[in-house]
């Protein structure tokens, strides 16, 4: 039984130019204690999908157009976006780490205030206890001199330190699921590695599930146990990390992996093959496969029939494609 089960999630945006189906039938699930990677190019609907699960899409222009998000036997999408049920879940059982540490902390409140807010809100702690716990949290995420730095304002922290504070906020109420929306995109590579190790360490210790949204395949390869690949608002391939990296089946995933340079490769040993073209404009999409114009493996069926349903190609391994690609 999955901890969180997202079924056929649809989130549309009404824009001046037409309807944007940012998430168009996204289904995924998360098991207890699992690290899941959600990968895809910019604008493919990764962030929208998880923001929809949290019901953080502003409406208008956003619209929850359908689907179910089953958590603890209840459909979260039935709740009002800002209703008490949803608010009780957010920040306590399901939390989120945002992409931009520089802007995700309120500049006029101290670190203490931002950490204790959640604790007082969800755990009914009094001020002293919350402060104590906040210092403990800062120590857990590796902020040096936590007892002093807790009184600082965000601008006195570096980007990496702020992201640590964000992580502390996310774990403060012992959540069951943490959504990390490109948590390391805005920091440099060494800090990235530190933060990811920290997050991995924390979720293992707390037995929390972690969903890492990223376009960095290296990150998911290293940390995720299962991977979902998204394209144009849909999941096009999913499966265990090993089988996706060892035997990608969807032409898009294959293309992605072929375009990643590897360290230690000698010059000319393997050619980097880019995916030509651009991701499609999500307005007025054709009914056929959205990857078709860029696909190098297309067959006659692809242009005639609608976007294929997910089909099994291995143990827990699914793709949405008509083409069977043999070997690697």
């Amino acid at each position, binding site marked *: 039984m999955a901890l969180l089960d997202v079924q056929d999630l649809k989130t549309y945006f009404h824009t001046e130019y037409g309807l944007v189906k940012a998430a168009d039938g996204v289904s995924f699930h998360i098991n207890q204690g699992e690290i899941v990677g959600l990968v895809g190019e910019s604008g493919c609907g990764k962030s929208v999908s998880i923001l929809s699960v949290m019901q953080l899409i502003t409406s208008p222009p956003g619209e929850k157009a359908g689907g179910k998000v089953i958590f603890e036997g209840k459909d979260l999408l039935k709740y009002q976006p800002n209703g008490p049920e949803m*608010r009780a879940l957010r920040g306590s059982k399901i939390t989120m780490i945002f992409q931009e540490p520089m802007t995700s902390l*309120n500049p*006029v409140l101290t670190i203490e205030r931002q950490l204790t807010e959640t604790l007082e809100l969800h755990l009914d702690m009094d001020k002293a206890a919350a402060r104590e716990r906040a210092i403990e949290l800062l120590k857990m995420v590796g902020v040096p001199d936590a007892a002093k730095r807790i009184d600082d*304002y965000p601008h006195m922290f570096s980007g990496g330190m702020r992201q640590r504070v964000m992580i502390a906020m996310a774990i403060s109420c012992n959540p069951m699921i943490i959504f990390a929306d490109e948590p390391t995109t805005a920091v440099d590579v060494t800090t990235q590695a530190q933060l990811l190790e920290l997050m991995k360490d924390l979720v293992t210790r707390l037995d929390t599930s972690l969903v890492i949204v990223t376009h960095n395949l290296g990150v998911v390869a290293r940390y995720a146990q299962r991977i979902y690949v998204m394209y144009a608002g849909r999941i096009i391939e999913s499966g265990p990390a090993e089988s996706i990296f060892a035997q990608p089946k969807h032409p898009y995933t294959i293309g992605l992996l072929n375009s990643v340079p590897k360290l230690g490769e000698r010059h000319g040993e393997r050619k980097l093959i880019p995916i030509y073209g651009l991701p499609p404009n999500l307005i007025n999409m054709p009914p056929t496969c959205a990857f078709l114009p860029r696909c190098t493996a297309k067959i006659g069926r692809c242009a005639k029939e609608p976007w294929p349903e997910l089909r099994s190609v291995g143990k827990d391994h699914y793709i949405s494609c008509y083409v069977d690609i043999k070997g690697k």
Partner: protein
Amino acid sequence: MAEKPKVSIGSVDAMGATAAPPRTSEWRRFARIFFGRKLYLIGFIIVAIIVLTAIFAQVIAPYDPIENDLDHRLQPPSADHWLGTDQLGRDMLSRIIYGAQISLLIGFSAVFASAIIGALMGLAAAHYGGWVFTVIMRLTDVLMSLPSIILMMLIAGMLKGGGIWIVVFALGFGSIPGMARMMCGQALSVKQNDYIMAARAVGMSNWRIMLTQIFPNAFPPLIVGLTMGIGGVVMGEAGLSFLGIGVQAPTPSWGNMVMDGQRFLMTNPLLSLIPGVAIMLLVFGFNMVGDGIRDAIDPRLRGVL
């Protein structure tokens, strides 16, 4: 040459992430910035003097401000009457001192009332959006499209009686649209920030976000608006009194003193000039204090100032 790298290593060390910056209490920091600039200090002193004068008016005023002394009318400044006397022989200094009381009372109450109402309206408009926003903002448009002096005259004229609370109401009412507009704009821009999304993501209710996240960020301009508003309201009071619908005689306010004096502008210009200068000083003082508070409480300026 050998010493040079040492210096830079030392300074990097002092600025490094692990070395905590020197800690000063918030109040000390506030005082350092606020009193560190001469203009703010001058403004503060002016405001302090006026406020103390208003509080201790009964103690320091040498004469009764409304007692006529027809034998000593329109006297120039002298040892007995430091600022001279007016057309009814009343001591100008005492009237200025008592006038400070009335002017400040009106200034503070009108501005605070309008700030509270206006800020709530602005927050509500920004918070709910949709038709609430439309109604509140169009209402402020209507109020702002009327010249404020006309609006205030209308209110003061309709509510006859001339008590100072009616003046407060008229002036406060006139300031609401500006406050609402400012707060709404501030709240809307703060609302766009990522940390508001982050606050929603930890399950805060809309009102909690409004009050604990948005309001503190929108606060510095409100403080500036408040302090400058006091200057504006005192001027407004002067305007109303000048037109004869403000604070009614014999109660002295700086506004009606200017008006009383204008008939003698050619012969005894001091009658209008003294309260006029008092108003000017008060407006200047409050503006400076407003600027000083803004600079001192804005955490974004921390480290810069």
